[in-house]
């Protein structure tokens, strides 16, 4: 995969200006390279923040003051020798520092390479490595907490416990096979079945929270639709007036002016405002309508705004029909004006639909909408404390483990002989190993670490 015996360098702080910018070096030549670009009169003392100056090239002129810290292996993020240089957060300066280190023998790191080395050196398992990316990418406090939990080992521990139980069962079954005649019974059918049930339940419990967890990690989308002038923009602005998700520009993606990501009970929800799409000329409108349709198709939740003070028109009805099978919240605006229709009279509105009449300028009403939207977004996943599983890769592997265990349970009940059960249990263990990355699959690793940013 990545070449591993050289020393890598990258800017570890995000692009843009700031008070501090950090350049990180990792590898066996980290100290040597640092010495070459710093104005030190003696070697860096381990874990001691040293105020010094950095040059623009080995032996060149000083360009900035930096605080240099040396982390000797293995007690560093990557498990290798690491030197961190904290300088002023000027992109120009930071880039010059990186060039200097490259001239002194370092190589620019690839995305995720620092974390990958940390994983390879056993500083963290794969699950924790992935948590680093999640932590860095988090946009809501709940997301951050979920990621931190994962980094802290909550998921790792949960999987570890389950794996331990599987291993214990395997040992007993093997012993029964190895000593068939000596009257030692280590695992009778009943015990095996009850053990397997307990293990399967543990996995299912993890998966139970996974839906919610995934929502926390990946967020959701809510599209606000309705004909012109029903109050979509007002609703959009009101919802955005609440806690915002802290979204930053990521190079390579375009910022859509009609979207904003909000923090809805910890879940990052991207609101899509289709306001103004109708208010353009015919040619463009056709395009806009197309785009709206597209947004509706891929959205997870629809907020359909209807004007309560005017009778429903064709446009309203066709939107109602179009969104019939979607997960939707119907907001009837302008509650403060006399209503011209009631939901019960309208066939396109089902009794199962969540309908609420609001005055969009009333904060209490908006809070109700916010609450209903939150509930809708989470679907059937009851709110619970931060679940251990948030990551789709983990979810898929856990599902695989779950089906393997169900198969094993079926086999055990059918009275299948031990060596077949053991094959299934072995598969389950291998799946757990895949989750924690004990047995790395090259392609999977590549995919995981390439999604990191450079400098991580």
């Amino acid at each position: 995969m990545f070449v591993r015996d050289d020393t890598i360098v990258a800017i570890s702080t995000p692009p843009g200006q700031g008070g501090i910018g950090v350049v990180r070096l990792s590898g066996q030549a980290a100290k040597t390279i640092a010495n070459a670009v710093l104005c030190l009169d003696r070697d860096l003392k381990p874990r001691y923040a040293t105020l010094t100056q950095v040059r623009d090239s080995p032996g060149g002129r000083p360009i900035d003051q930096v605080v240099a810290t040396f982390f000797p292996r293995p007690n560093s993020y990557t498990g290798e020798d690491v030197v961190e240089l904290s300088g002023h957060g000027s992109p120009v300066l930071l880039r010059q520092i990186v060039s200097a280190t490259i001239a002194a023998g370092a190589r620019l790191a690839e995305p995720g390479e620092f974390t990958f080395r940390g994983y390879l050196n056993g500083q963290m398992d794969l699950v924790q490595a992935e948590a680093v990316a999640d932590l860095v990418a988090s946009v809501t406090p709940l997301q951050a907490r979920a990621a931190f939990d994962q980094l802290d080992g909550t998921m790792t521990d949960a999987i570890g416990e389950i794996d331990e139980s599987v291993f214990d069962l395997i040992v007993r079954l093997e012993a029964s096979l190895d000593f068939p005649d000596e009257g030692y019974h280590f695992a009778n059918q009943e015990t095996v079945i009850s053990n397997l049930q307990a293990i399967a339940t543990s996995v299912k419990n993890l998966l139970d929270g996974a839906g919610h967890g995934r929502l926390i990690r990946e967020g959701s989308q809510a599209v606000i639709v309705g004909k012109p002038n029903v109050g979509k923009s007002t609703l959009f602005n009101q919802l955005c007036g609440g806690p915002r998700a802290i979204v930053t520009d990521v190079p390579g993606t375009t910022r859509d002016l009609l979207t904003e990501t909000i923090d809805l009970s910890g879940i990052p929800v991207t609101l899509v405002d289709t306001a103004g799409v109708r208010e353009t000329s015919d040619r463009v409108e056709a395009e806009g309508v197309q785009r709206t349709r597209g947004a509706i198709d891929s959205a997870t939740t629809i907020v359909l705004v209807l004007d309560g003070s005017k009778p429903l028109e064709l446009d309203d009805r066709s939107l109602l029909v179009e969104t019939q099978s979607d997960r939707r919240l119907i907001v009837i605006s302008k509650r403060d004006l006399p209503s011209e229709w009631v939901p019960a009279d309208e066939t396109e509105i089902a009794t199962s639909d969540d309908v609420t009449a609001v005055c969009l300028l009333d904060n209490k009403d908006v809070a109700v909408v916010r609450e209903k939207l939150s509930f809708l977004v989470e679907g059937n996943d009851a709110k619970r404390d931060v679940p251990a599983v948030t990551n789709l890769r983990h979810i898929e592997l856990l599902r695989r483990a779950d089906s393997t265990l169900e198969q094993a349970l079926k086999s055990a009940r059918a009275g299948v002989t031990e060596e077949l059960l053991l094959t299934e249990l072995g598969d389950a263990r291998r799946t757990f190993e895949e989750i924690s990355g004990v047995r790395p699959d090259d392609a999977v690793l590549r995919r995981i670490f390439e999604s990191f940013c450079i400098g991580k």
Partner: protein
Amino acid sequence: MTTTSAFDVIVIGAGHAGVEAAWSAATMGCRVGICTLSADTVAHMPCNPAIGGTAKGHLVREIDALGGLMGLAIDTTGLQFKLLNRSRGPAVWSPRAQADKRVYAARVAELMRQQPNIEWVLGRVGRLLVKGYSVVGVELEDDSGNTGGQELQATTVIVTTGTFLNGLTHVGSEQKAAGRVGEPPSHHLAESLKALGFRWGRLKTGTPPRLDRRSIDFSRFDQSLGDDSPVPFSFMTESLDRPQIVCHSLYTNQRVHDLVRDNIQRSPLYNGQIEGIGPRYCPSLEDKVMRFPDRERHQVLLEPEGVGMDEIYVNGFSMSLPAAIQEDLVHALPGLQDAVVMRSGYAVEYDFVQPTELRRTYESKTIRGLFMAGQINGTSGYEEAAAQGLIAGINAAQQVKEEAPFVLERSDAYIGVLADDLTTRGCLEPYRMFTSRAEYRLLLRIDNADLRLTSKGRDIGLVGDRRWKRFQERQVRFKRNVRAVEETTVSVAEGKRVRASQALSRPDISLETLLEQGELRLESVDGCHAFDLWSVEAEFKYSGYLKRQNANIKQAQKLESLAIPERFVYTGMPGLSREVVERLNETRPETLGQASRIAGVTAAAVAIIAGRLSR
């Protein structure tokens, strides 16, 4: 100090490893000299008078499939045959047979005499002769047991000295230098090997007392009978219809346990007198009583050592307590109050060479042409020894003929698992084969040993024409039977008709049932009847599992096929911790797959080495 003309292979020791080594090398065309102290102790069974058992039976079938001796010998001399683990699936069925020790040994000697390439050298090897980094021969001890005897030249030497290297027996506090009771140990040879720089360890093993058959009233015990239709070990056996003997079983009791506990300080196994590490799986009586205090009783089996022999082997009663205590213990067993102890049980401590010193061909990594096989490598069991001897003999012959080494993979055979486990992990305690050691257990069955291995044996010249013909016929039968199962429809419970292959995939339907119903007919021949059917049954019952195992093997293949060059330097490789480097340098794995199996080598380390190798 006269020399004779050179041998291609000299085998030191005529135990189970030695005889297979000599046999295979000779059959492959080498001139073999086999050195032993006495012609009486060829293929001797110093402990359990039995061949086979869980996983061991698998080894014997594989040895036979390749053309080795063990299967042939036991089939013609076995006293009682049993198929173990019958209640489980075909992958773990394993044959075991009680043997008549003397007749077994005689049969082996007879088979070997039929091989003209084998020459017997009576005497004891005192020194290995090494020039540079290659072995050139051996030097025998002179008549007074000192070095300086006759020199024999050889291209390759296979050391199969079992428990004789600096062997020390213990009965209570009585210690005697011996390889086995009554047989002097090898001291000079041990020193000669040590001087070559190999890493050593010390192990121990034990054996139970022997009782006089005539002093026992067997009617008081439970009977243990052989199988009605015994399954042979050898693919060449056409029938096993000799009458089988009856064995007897009983249980220990509190009195026995108390006696052991009260005298535990006099047991060299427990009072520190013995330094070697013993087998966990073959626990002495002391071990069983002390380590499983909750168990009220342990099974004991009374096994005759041979027809016409008076010695009864007390299986499960291995110990090294003082002779007097042993007698008391025997008499405490219900029904054995008057039994006469013919020979005390004893423990033997011996030197062994860490098998990480060897390649999977059992050739030393440092001395060319020097092979080691058997208990000297830290294994326990006749079958494990025989399997090693076979591979060592084959490879010595290949080296002499300047042909490619012969290595079986973990996915080929238990023989492959054995070689890989030993040379990768070394031994901290005596190694015994278990089915759980084979990750491809479902593929490595006793019924398909020939389908897996006989062609390989033919390729290297170990499988003769008779066996080859018989094998080819079996292959044809197997293919035809598989097709028959796929194409015949049978009726099942609900009156439906399905293909036999589908019916077999149901856990409640066995091949036997289908055959009894009469709609399905398969081919089989005498002696091979059981295997013909089982191979077919397993093919279908296990099919889903087999597919997965085969997929796993393919996956593993990538790592297994990445060879690590001999002089690969681990020291100083960035990313490898000092512990990992130490383990790698100790073992010097030949492939990346082997490296991944060394204890303490992380997946990350494997990835790093892989990265370096691919550049």
